């Protein structure tokens, strides 16, 4: 039982030491300075968001323009690649996988509804 007994006198000494020790304090006016910084922040954030949006639009436009030059050759290559593919087999497999996935989703949805009810 004594193991958990707080060392009250030592605790008091620590409290005294800490409260009388020279502790660094925030400089005067720190709160006001923080309020000013925080007030400026939304404006800075708005500028950053605006710049980001412009950059994204530029990247999309540049990618689109670049794609125009290569799209014909890509289409030709794809056609050549896919001409010899066993399409009936691939489509059947895809339909089977899709059906299984749909059944799983439906089962999960029914189970969820039952649990909520």
């Amino acid at each position, binding site marked *: 039982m004594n*193991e958990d007994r707080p*060392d*009250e*006198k*030592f*605790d*008091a*000494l*620590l*409290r*005294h*030491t*800490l*409260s*009388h*020790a020279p*502790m*660094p*304090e*925030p*400089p005067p006016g*720190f*709160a*006001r300075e*923080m*309020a000013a*910084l*925080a*007030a400026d*922040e939304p404006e800075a954030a708005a500028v950053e968001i605006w710049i980001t949006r412009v950059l994204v639009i530029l990247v999309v436009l540049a990618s689109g323009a670049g794609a125009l030059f290569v799209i014909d050759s890509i289409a030709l290559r794809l056609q050549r690649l896919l001409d010899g593919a066993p399409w009936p087999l691939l489509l059947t497999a895809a339909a089977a996988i899709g059906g299984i996935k749909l059944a799983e989703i439906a089962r999960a949805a029914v189970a969820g509804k039952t649990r909520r009810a």
Partner: protein
Amino acid sequence: VSGKAAQIEEDRILVAGVLERRDGAFETLVGRHQRLVWHMIHGVVRHPEDTRDVCQEAFLRVHRELHRFRFESLLSTWIARIAWHAALRHLERKRLPVVSLDDDEGALAKQVTDDFDLEASCANTQLLECLHAAIEALPPLKRAVITLHYLEDVAIGEIAIIVDRPEGTVKSELLRARGRLRKVLINQPGESS
């Protein structure tokens, strides 16, 4: 409990003021918590300029995230938690450790009894200086726990939330830190153990 309820009510009014961008509300919030945040961050980062930068970072984050505060703890606890994580990120950037391995000090704290003269010890400036130096020399987590517990009177449960550790870990850190500080007292001439 009523004191805590009153504090939460006061927090609600202050938070609402900041979220509604009422004049001076955020300044009041910073003014109320700056001492706690400054002491805690300084205890971890140990450098005046870095302390200032990390404090600014912490309060800016408080300002950005305040709409997410759900009053599940005291506002001071939530802010101190943000400050603690900002200080940790600073240590990570500087590649400094948060905890150190020392297992024998808790046992030492249990062995030593209260056989010393408190009044004489408080008047012994050399002892107080040595104790303060020993507190300064503690690793960041122990220093933060000791400062929050003894200087800011934060309860163990709240400290656990702030430093993101289980209560048991906080108690053990506190015990070990006390053990280490006990050594200073034992090694002082004229102090009995």
